[in-house]
């Protein structure tokens, strides 16, 4: 029996997410109307805030880079049938790795320190994912629960470290000192400036190239290597994996290590690329947005790239909106983002069945 609501690819990957997005924006518009602002003006402000100028584009892409990392992290785990909700904590600890490298070796050449920082980000993020993965693989502890707990543990650990250990002496705010000049990921406006193209300054940095490379690598890994194949077999049909001789424990561990490593790379973008020091709560929920991004992007790197751009734009455009509209505050923007996540994530399937029925009727009368 075929599942109800199976859609052709173009509808599944294009039309359906678009419909969900429109529904979310429609309801957001209603709420904005309710508080006495013009939805149309708000939409225009958001679009302008996200894409209206070079620096706003830069910010949008900077946020999008975060979401690519966390989205890929979720997707890799999902392909193995593992739901990694711990992206936030893994990103946070990944940042610790970047930070320690930045603080310790900041005076060295960036040609050494930047790769070292990336490696540390992956290693720390992977290490933070390893414990829940091991508990799931060997002890059957539910990974959704353990990864959520590990987010809290990461948060507590980082607060402790920043307040008591890493804090720059002689200041109140719990932040480390600045990294040395070697631990700085060049920003895009600097890089473009070097080849003579002017670009407005923004935190948009070359970690975005790392994100693009990660997209490509994840695609190759999942669809072109035997390990990715094994991972997908396990994710789609654990019994068939057992039959094929694919070890469940190993698959869970490997997928979570990769997932954690990818999430950890967020630290490269945020800390090496923008902040140049370790500070409290720098992932700022990007780990959770990654879940929505992966869902909306259908766990495919290309889709994740597109969804990351959307969420980057929402993030940046939303900030602009809160800044420009007197009645729209920060919470309002969170609401809009929440609605998009709700429609593209939790309610992802509400239009699926009617849309499938509609397409089936349209297609059934004509070609088969």
């Amino acid at each position, binding site marked *: *029996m*075929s599942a109800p609501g*199976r859609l052709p690819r173009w509808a599944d990957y294009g039309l359906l997410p678009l419909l969900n997005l429109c529904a979310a924006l429609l309801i957001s518009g209603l709420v904005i109307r309710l508080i006495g602002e013009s939805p149309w003006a708000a939409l225009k402000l958001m679009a302008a805030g996200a894409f209206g100028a070079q620096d706003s584009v830069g910010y949008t892409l900077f946020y999008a880079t975060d979401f690519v990392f966390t989205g890929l992290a979720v997707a890799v785990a999902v392909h193995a049938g593992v739901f990694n909700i711990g992206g936030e904590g893994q990103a946070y600890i990944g940042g610790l790795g970047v930070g320690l490298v930045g603080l310790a070796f900041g005076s060295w050449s960036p040609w050494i320190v930047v790769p070292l920082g990336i490696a540390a980000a992956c290693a720390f993020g992977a290490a933070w994912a390893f414990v829940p993965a091991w508990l799931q693989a060997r002890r059957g502890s539910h990974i959704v629960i353990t990864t959520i707990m590990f987010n809290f543990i990461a948060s507590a650990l980082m607060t402790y470290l920043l307040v008591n250990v890493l804090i720059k002496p002689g200041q109140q705010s719990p932040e480390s000192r600045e990294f040395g000049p070697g631990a700085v990921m060049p920003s895009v406006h600097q890089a473009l400036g070097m080849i003579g193209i002017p670009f407005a300054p923004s935190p948009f940095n070359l970690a975005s190239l790392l994100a693009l490379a990660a997209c490509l690598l994840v695609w*190759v890994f999942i669809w*072109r*290597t*035997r*390990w990715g*194949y*094994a991972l*997908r*077999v396990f994710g*789609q*049909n654990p*019994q*068939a994996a*057992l*039959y*094929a*001789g*694919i*070890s469940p424990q190993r698959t869970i561990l490997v997928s979570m290590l990769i997932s954690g490593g990818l999430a950890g790379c967020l630290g490269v973008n945020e800390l090496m690329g923008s902040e140049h020091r370790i500070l409290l709560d720098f992932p700022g929920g990007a780990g959770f947005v990654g879940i929505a991004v992966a869902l909306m992007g259908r766990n495919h790197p290309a889709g994740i790239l597109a969804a990351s751009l959307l969420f980057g734009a929402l993030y940046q455009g939303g900030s602009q909106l809160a800044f420009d509209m007197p009645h729209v505050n920060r919470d309002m923007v969170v609401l809009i983002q929440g609605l998009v996540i709700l429609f593209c994530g939790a309610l992802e399937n509400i239009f699926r069945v009617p849309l499938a029925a509609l397409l*089936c009727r349209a*297609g*059934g009368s004509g070609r*088969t």
Partner: protein
Amino acid sequence: MEPESPAPEAPGGLPGPALELRAIDKRFGAVHANRAVSLSVARGSIHGLIGENGAGKSTLMNIVYGFHTADSGEIRVNGRRVVIGRPRDSIEAGIGMVHQHFMLVERFTVLENVVLGAEGGSLLGKGLAEARAGLARLGRDYGLDVPLDAETGHLPVGMQQRVEILKALHHRADILILDEPTSVLTPPEADQLFRMLALLRDQGKTVILVTHKLREIMAITDRVTVMRQGAVVHETATRDTTPRALAEQIVGRAVLLRVEKKPARPGPALLEVRNLEVRDRFGVPRVKGATFSLRAGEIVGIAGVSGNGQSELLEALSGIRRPSGGAILLGGRDIAGENVGPRDRRGLGIAHVPEDRLRMGVVGSFSAEDNSILGYEGRPEFSGGGILRRGAIRSGCERKMAAYDIRPPAPRLRITAFSGGNQQKVVMAREIDSKPSVLIVGQPTRGVDIGAIEFIHRRIVELRDAGKAVLVVSVELDEIMGLSDRILVMAGGEFVGEVSGEEANERTLGLMMAGVRGDPRK
């Protein structure tokens, strides 16, 4: 299809046949599952519905029962048009269905299960009491004795099936649809079921029997309808036809019902199993002290009612499950330990076609070509340095599709879009193509159409003739008897008898399967 003729008046006061389908049409996307199907089932008869897997029988019955809605066409019950959009509508129209996989709550008592869906009010007490009285009467009338207060999950399968029938009758069904009812029964249990169905018919109930077993159609039905590719291709009174004629209608061409093979010339033992004990995950022993050997150039069949340790035996041999005792000797080496997993066993030349194709043998969401390397993805022909050789995988799959006549020959098509027979051919091709010395096959033709059965059997015999050892586990006695050179019978996790392929007959095997130990040579 021709335009429907007016319904004839039937005896018994009610107009028309018990169930009449007129030009039922149903599509699932590109699949035309039912093409203008018209069917008329006379009251007080047993009507057989037979056809290959994917011929549209199940879809048709699911439309009648309200699991699916037809795109067009109408359903008439007792001459009156009814609209069936969900199971409740069909229950109200007096239609009951016994599914292949029972829809019972195992932890409920029989009584609670029967009442389910017809509780008769928000408090259970009154409904249960009424049901108890009603069921006692039904039990008397139809000889359906079932312990009403027993926990359903503890009952034998045959008894659970009776509970399903009782449930349908309790819901006032006059038309009873049974979907492959004998697939889980021993031959004696099946005979008992058929006696029960005959009794139901004689009491005026109408029975529709959906099956793929010709023997059952011939044994019990009054009329039979053959479906092929979504359409009715043949309908006749059962006494006017023969199994061969029906088989040809089902497949659309002449078929071989017996497996053609030369006598076996067994060579040395390739695989020896000694005192094997396998426990399930609750620690319950499922295979108790199995000892046998597989010789080169020989097909050994294991007969038994499903759930008597065959699955665990297969899993232990293929390395999926670690035995708790005993030895599996391959060329003198004991491979029973955990460190020789399924992948290593493939490397040692043991290929395995699992019993439950969709649960284990394929990944439903993968394409045919991706499924054609499952378990072998690390072999140098399919990957190098960890990177899959996409081109080689595709051409390998195309080659297998041509060699095994897999239709459609589309490597990139999702495996679940293929018919059961073609899916099984993908699995068979994958395993046989790996050049095994020992092939272990569970249910080689479960859910496979007659045309493909012939093909698969021939491949298994070819492998034997090439000097390989084959172990076949099947719940289909005909298959075991037709294919095997030697038959071992399993009951309660033990081997209770051994007979040679030529000597085997249904009666002796059936008795042994029921656990009656006999002199194996009698």
